[in-house]
């Protein structure tokens, strides 16, 4: 198991009271993503636990692109990965984010 942590400063300190969203399942080649609100002064944190070690550089690229695509603010995102390809990770993150944004505040 490898644990990685990423932090991003936010553009605003907006606070929304949205319920947490969980998408996906942990299984071989798959992952689960949990998105929840957290008072992080506008910033966001992403925690990754992955079965596949040695891919920190690729995780950083995938997570950074994800953070660029979406305007993250005060979010705690937890990823529990069963050894997925970056394709699955990006898709699951985008699905989770769309799901989260679609939730009523």
């Amino acid at each position, binding site marked *: 198991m490898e644990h990685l942590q990423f932090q991003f400063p936010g553009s605003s300190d907006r606070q929304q009271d949205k319920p947490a969203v969980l998408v996906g399942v942990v299984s071989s*080649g*798959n992952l689960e993503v949990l998105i929840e609100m957290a008072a992080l002064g506008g910033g966001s944190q992403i925690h990754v636990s992955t079965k*596949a070690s040695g*891919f920190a550089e*690729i995780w950083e*690229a*995938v997570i950074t692109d994800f953070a660029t695509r979406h305007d993250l603010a005060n979010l705690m995102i937890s990823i529990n990965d069963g050894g997925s*390809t*970056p*394709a*699955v990770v*990006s*898709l*699951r993150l*985008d*699905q989770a984010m*769309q*799901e989260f944004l679609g939730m009523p505040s």
Partner: protein
Amino acid sequence: MKKWQTQVENRRARLQRASDICGEKVVPADRMRSLLENVIEPGDRVCLEGNNQKQADFLARCLAQVDPARVHGLHMVQSVIGLPEHIELFERGIANKVDFSYSGPVGTRMAQLVADGKIQIGAIHTYLELFGRYFIDLTPRVALIVAHSADRQGNLYTGPNTEDTPTIVEATAFKSGIVIAQVNQVVDILPRVDIPADWVDFVTEAPTPHFIEPLFTRDPAQIGEVKILMAMMVIKGIYAEYGINRLNHGVGFDTAAIELLLPTYAESLGLKGQICRHWMLNPHPTLIPAIESGFAESVYSPGSELGMEDYVRARPDIFFTGIDGSQRTNRAFSHAAGHYACDLFIGSTLQVDLDGNSSTVTLDRIAGFGGAPNLGADARGRRHCQAAWLKAGRESRGQAKGMPRGRKLVVQMVETFREQMQPTFVERLDAWEFMENLGMELPPVMIYGDDVSHIVTEEGIANLLLCRTEEERNDAIRGVAGYTLVGRERSRSAVENLRDRGIIRRPEDLGIDKRMATRDLLAARSVKELVRWSGGLYQPPKRFRNW
């Protein structure tokens, strides 16, 4: 005085020696090995029928058991090297050279034998190319073929898996060669005649039915969301935009996902009757929902597929069938059809370089090509026009002056990483090192980059037809290469520029909502659901049944 009948006389001598073993056309199975020792001469070119589906496995076993003192130095010509017996021929010194198209699970052992100097590879071909050579410079002296059944005169019934048999027999029987067939049974009356008796010299009833592999069955349960997303992009961004109605799919889960999205996603876009009407394809079980829902109107096949026999028999409006009702297939005609009469080929591969060249070669395994080089190549001899072919031609020419012509769409559909995080996109194909190791003259490229029109990955579609320079082409490929090293070395501004010009299109550029990319979008999510779609006519092999 020059003699003009040496081959005919040689054939007569072989038949004379054979008559010492058996005076009949129907040879008992236990005499087949001796028959082969009498009929085959050292150094002969021998065609052992076997494709990736049916195999002349009994004759392969008999040949592997002959006395190498009597039969040796054979030059094998065959579509596929797939059975352990094929490898034994070389291990025992019975054969030392091979010209072929594809090697299946024995690819690793084969690479070892090449390294040990026990196999000399003539060339690795695409099917139609190898068949062509059977009539030019690789004509077999002896062909060992396989059919379903024979009558006592030697007429053959191949059943739905006719495959390569007519081609091999044609090349051998009409050039004074010897044709020997193994069949599952000898009967009084055949359901239909696929090969006439006077083209066949000997028939034997094999102790067990011939081996056949359900090669084209893909279990929908194993199709993940990334493949579904890619299939959505292909349907909306390529099939709909070009109006693709005459096409061929490679084998794999990527294209199976497309087949399973036709009755759902494509239907929701109003595309029924607009795309995917005419197919060159084995009867893929995953095509059943598209047939039942009225998308696919005709299907011509290189071979059949285990379990699909009754379904095909019940749908003669769709499939090509004989007077007995069962399917008739033909690999040579299918690959001619795929080359000249289809507007699009789509398939997967293991490695793609920055010019779009692709290869399935890895360093420790000789895989071969099968039909991909032929199906995935622009047909330079094509003259008939279709809207899709003309549009691709216009895109490729741009503002260039000179004679207008159309071109085929050749699409490579790949995830940027394969299993074990092996990158699909690379700077240099392993094929180069493979060539150097084997002393080949060219790297074994499956599809050349200049034949590829589109590359589809989970990141988007790169339209290579619209690229005007080599640099643009490289940027376009980097732009869909994801987080592979090649992809991460992209220039973001170059990629954004290509996106503005529609050369790279992301799912969002195509108006695709990624949330829809779930397994709920598949018309069938399991083999059992395919059976249900077929009204119980599809009978999957046991290993695909889990109920």
